[in-house]
């Protein structure tokens, strides 16, 4: 099927395509709307463009009905996503994020599943100030969302810092090189003078083109044996290949993605497939060509089917590979062998090379905030004030206080203890392996709670865990408020996807190392059923598991659920 003719799907372009086309390289009428004082919201069209600038208009859904009665518009506010390639942030940058969250945001920070910062609750009139202060800290929000390449993920694994720093270098470069060229961001937020001449000439997007991509595009880089970035969930994944302590290159995997829609079998989660190997210096070339293929043949008519995974499945892997090599003008090497053994994080202090220390902190739901009994935000602020190393956001919404010198270790450890910052050791392993998306109250697409509810649910699951002596058994458990799957629930051994308030679809059978999708086990169930199902499953697991067998594999072996061999049979 290699000779299959290449073409994009038929059909009228979606409305978003029109908006992009009319936007004059992502400007639209944002300048004016942001100045209007009568509403803190903006038009739908402008909000579409806003995403390319790293932000979304949202409203506090907890207050919607109440405010409507009060004759007040929804509590509109902006979410701002700060691009941090590889999730690396300096202490100075951490302090800026912290300050901005207090000053303009809702007083909390969200560490995302793609190693970025998110601030919620920023008012329209504070957006410019916020973005300018972020810019001054040498971070930005450009292309943190939108139909472009996103924040490039990279394993922050501190154990092998040499490799890591090298891999990080490549990821950072990718992230930056793949940025859009338009000056709209600088004009709108940084008061840059409008570039002279017509945009077409000055800022035409050599790679993206005026319409950018059909849909968002995501790249991740993994360093085995850790698959924390869930390499198979990426549109494009690079797997670092290390031979005798040296980075020789990367295996290339394409066509992964998690999002789907309830009741629409045309949409499904899919795993990226390894198609070959390239040298580090070839990484950008490969990424660029893959992106242009998606640009040219991706579905611009139906956004639900516009992700690269559908393009690959429609054209066929071989076709895409052939087209890639045609555009590259050279061929990928044979993929090299590699091995993953987990996609979660490893907590606590570890000694890296060059005598540097790293502390991986468990952050429930990735939410940095101060609770009455847990002053996480303050603690980290105090640490940042004296920390000479850096902070690393992990793909599991956790945080690494990295590159701590032996001299500083004592002081920092004192602060860690003073504020009771936890490596999660006193939690059950299942809680330490949990992931939840933002969901309510800020996410406009949420159908059910996630970040606010999973911890509560786990309190109850913990009882079952203890009954069965599984406290130290790592079982990845993930929950999202809707099938967009922002916390990659289909790659959790136990997955929940919100269907309606208090109701979830339950998924089982994913592999512990993130190499197999799970499958729907129960549809639309509430807490009581969730718990009674888990009670049976977990006690069987405790009794009948084989030595070292993971829960995900167990449910397949004992035929609780059928293994998903490919996204295309996820719904069967």
């Amino acid at each position: 099927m290699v000779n299959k003719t290449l073409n994009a799907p038929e059909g009228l372009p979606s409305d978003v395509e029109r908006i992009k086309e009319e936007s004059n390289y992502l400007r639209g009428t944002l300048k004016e709307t942001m100045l209007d004082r009568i509403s803190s919201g903006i038009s739908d069209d402008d909000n579409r463009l806003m995403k390319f600038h790293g932000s979304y208009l949202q409203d506090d859904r907890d207050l919607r009905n109440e405010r409507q009665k009060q004759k007040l518009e929804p509590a509109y506010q902006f979410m701002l996503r700060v691009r941090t390639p590889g999730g690396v942030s300096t202490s100075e940058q951490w302090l800026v994020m912290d300050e901005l969250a207090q000053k303009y945001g809702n007083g909390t920070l969200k560490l995302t599943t793609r190693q970025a910062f998110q601030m919620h609750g920023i008012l329209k009139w504070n957006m410019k100030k916020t973005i300018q202060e972020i810019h001054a800290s040498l971070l930005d929000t450009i292309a943190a969302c939108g139909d472009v390449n996103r924040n490039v993920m990279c394993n922050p694994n501190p154990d092998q810092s040499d490799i890591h720093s090298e891999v990080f270098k490549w990821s950072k470069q990718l992230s930056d090189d793949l940025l859009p060229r338009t000056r709209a961001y600088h004009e709108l937020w940084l008061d840059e003078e409008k570039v002279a001449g017509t945009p077409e000439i000055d800022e035409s997007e050599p790679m993206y083109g005026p319409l950018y991509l059909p849909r968002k595009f995501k790249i991740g880089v993994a360093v085995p044996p850790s698959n924390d970035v869930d390499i198979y969930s990426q549109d494009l994944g690079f797997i670092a290949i290390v031979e005798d302590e040296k980075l020789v290159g990367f295996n290339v995997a394409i066509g992964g993605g998690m999002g789907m829609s309830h009741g629409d079998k045309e949409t499904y989660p899919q795993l990226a497939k390894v198609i070959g190997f390239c040298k580090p210096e070839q990484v950008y070339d490969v990424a660029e060509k893959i992106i242009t293929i998606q640009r040219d043949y991706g579905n611009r008519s139906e956004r639900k089917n516009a992700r690269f995974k559908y393009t690959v499945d429609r054209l066929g892997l071989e076709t895409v590979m052939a087209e890639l090599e045609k555009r590259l003008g050279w061929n990928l090497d044979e993929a090299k062998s590699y091995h993953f053994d987990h996609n979660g994080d490893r907590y606590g202090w570890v000694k890296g090379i060059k005598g540097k220390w790293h502390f991986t902190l468990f952050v429930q739901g990735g939410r940095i905030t101060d609770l009455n009994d847990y002053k996480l935000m303050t603690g980290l602020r105090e640490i940042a004030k004296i920390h000479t190393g850096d902070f690393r956001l992990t793909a599991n919404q956790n945080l690494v206080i990295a590159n701590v010198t032996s001299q500083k270790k004592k002081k920092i450890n004192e602060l860690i203890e003073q504020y009771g910052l936890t490596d999660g050791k006193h939690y059950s392993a299942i809680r330490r392996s949990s992931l939840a998306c933002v969901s309510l109250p800020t996410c406009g697409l949420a159908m059910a709670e996630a970040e606010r509810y999973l911890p509560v649910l786990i309190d109850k699951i913990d009882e079952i865990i203890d009954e069965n002596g599984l406290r130290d058994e790592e079982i990845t458990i993930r929950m999202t408020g809707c099938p967009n799957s922002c916390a990659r629930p289909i790659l959790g051994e136990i997955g929940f996807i919100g269907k309606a308030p208090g109701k979830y679809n339950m998924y089982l059978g994913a592999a512990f190392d993130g190499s197999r999708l799970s499958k729907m086990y129960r549809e639309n169930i509430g807490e009581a059923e969730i718990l009674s199902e888990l009670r049976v499953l977990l006690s069987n697991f405790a009794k009948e598991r084989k030595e070292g067998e993971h829960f995900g594999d167990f449910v397949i072996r004992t035929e609780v659920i059928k293994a998903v061999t490919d996204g295309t049979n996820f719904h069967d």
Partner: protein
Amino acid sequence: MQLQVMNSPFNQEQAELLNRLLPTLTESQKVWLSGYIAATQSASAISTQEAPVASLPAESAVQTISKEVTILYGSQTGNAQRLADNAGKSLEGQGFEVTVASMSDFKPNNLKKLHNLLIIVSTHGEGDPPDNALSFHEFLHGRRAPKLDDLRFSVLSLGDSSYEFFCQTGKEFDQRLEELGGKRLNERVDCDLDFDEPATEWLEGVISGLKEAQGGSATVSSKTPQAAVESEYSRTNPFKAEVLENLNLNGRGSNKETRHLELSLEGSGLTYEPGDSLGIYPENDPALVEMLLQELKWDPDEIVKVNKQGDVRSLKEALTSQFEITVLTKPLLQQAAELTANTKLKALLSAGNEDKVKEYVNGRDLLDLVRDYGPWSVSAQEFVGILRKMPARLYSIASSLAANPDEVHLTIGAVRYNTHGRDRDGVCSILCSERLQAGDTLPIYIQHNQNFKLPQNPDTPIIMVGPGTGIAPFRSFMQEREEMGVEGKSWMFFGDQHFVTDFLYQTEWQKWLKDGVLTKMDVAFSRDTDEKVYVQTRMQEHSKELFEWLEEGAVIYICGDEKHMAHDVHNTLIEIIEQEGSMSREKAESYIATMQQEKRYQRDVY
């Protein structure tokens, strides 16, 4: 005219007899008859309650001297105006030729022509004249004021004894007219908030004054004037309106609480126009009444007289709904001093201590007085005898009757503050915010306000400045204009603390703007940004366009806080006119004065 039971004081039989007799009388017979009746009448003096045929004798008797009476009123919230209209009616009933006018409509150079002048004026601000009295007040006190040697006058001043400058404006008119050579028909009467009785007495005094001036030849009517009301309900006979809706307009996390109240007027026959206000007779906080009773160790159920008419209530009821217990006034202190054995109160009131007294009454209530200056060796009856009647609270109506038949909406800011170590609640606003549910009723009346009205001409542009609860009447304006499909330009300035929580009626304004019912809107939220911005800041920002609107004949309305906002906005306006019209300060001020004259500058401030 044909006499009937309806239009005369006679019964059916008398009326018929007179109707047969009168047409047959010659002029001289009539004169003789009226003289005869007048004589017998003055002999039996006031005793006769019923007046004889009103018009006939008057006509003839008054031929000798001027029967022209001019009543000028200065009124902000309509009380003085209503009293003036009523006075006019009853004087006409006495056969006088009466002209009732707002001071702003009166041509000062006509002053010299007047023989009988009655002034009914309230005091506002801090001892300032009401807006529509400003220019006349200024004229009288200026150098161009004429000598008024053959003028007879009398002043009725409205005020509130809890203010430092009680009835100041009335006093000033009274004194000034005398200085200019006028003679008093009747001594000035200063009314406190409960003004009906003193006002009636003043009018009776004036009438007899006028009659005496006419050599007592005419008849005296002791019939008390009554307003011709369209509804049986009024300020003196409030309607119990059912609460349909009562909600807080401020979003969570706001420092403010602003109640949106919807009341039913069904069956009341009450009507109102945009710009009118609504009066509410509130009840005191039961907790406060309780504390007072305990402090004084009185029996809550003891029966007390609550007014001259001798109506009675239980003490508890009286203190809850009949009397004012949250405000201290100097007169009250003076009377209280007579009821306590404690000499310290007299000492406080002794001459030279004015400031101390002022200091003391500020932010204190009856409970403080009772606690500070006991023991009270006095009966409950004596004690309540010195209290002021519970005054009604006025609220700018926030709805249009056309848009909401049988309904009236209000926008009420909750008043809470802490003084002298105790949390204090505004009587009416906190009643509405904490103790009033849908289904309950409130005693209310309509306070018509001719001084705050939409322009007759629908094309006249309007500029509305209403921060905080000042937004209320403009919601009514918008509803009305939307209902009537008015095309004229309109521009709203609103401000408060925070955009997110304090943008009152936000979605309604957004809709009016979208639908073009409202042309422009500018908002200022003082606590959202580092630099404080207020409505006047926004007005300045648009000074050019704003002046253009004024030049096009726009009417500007200002509603809300009197102490700060109204003054700042006023000054900003003057600055804008100076700057954009390149005028001197004086010029700009007279520009505004003219607007006031033309009713193009209207205020509803409190």
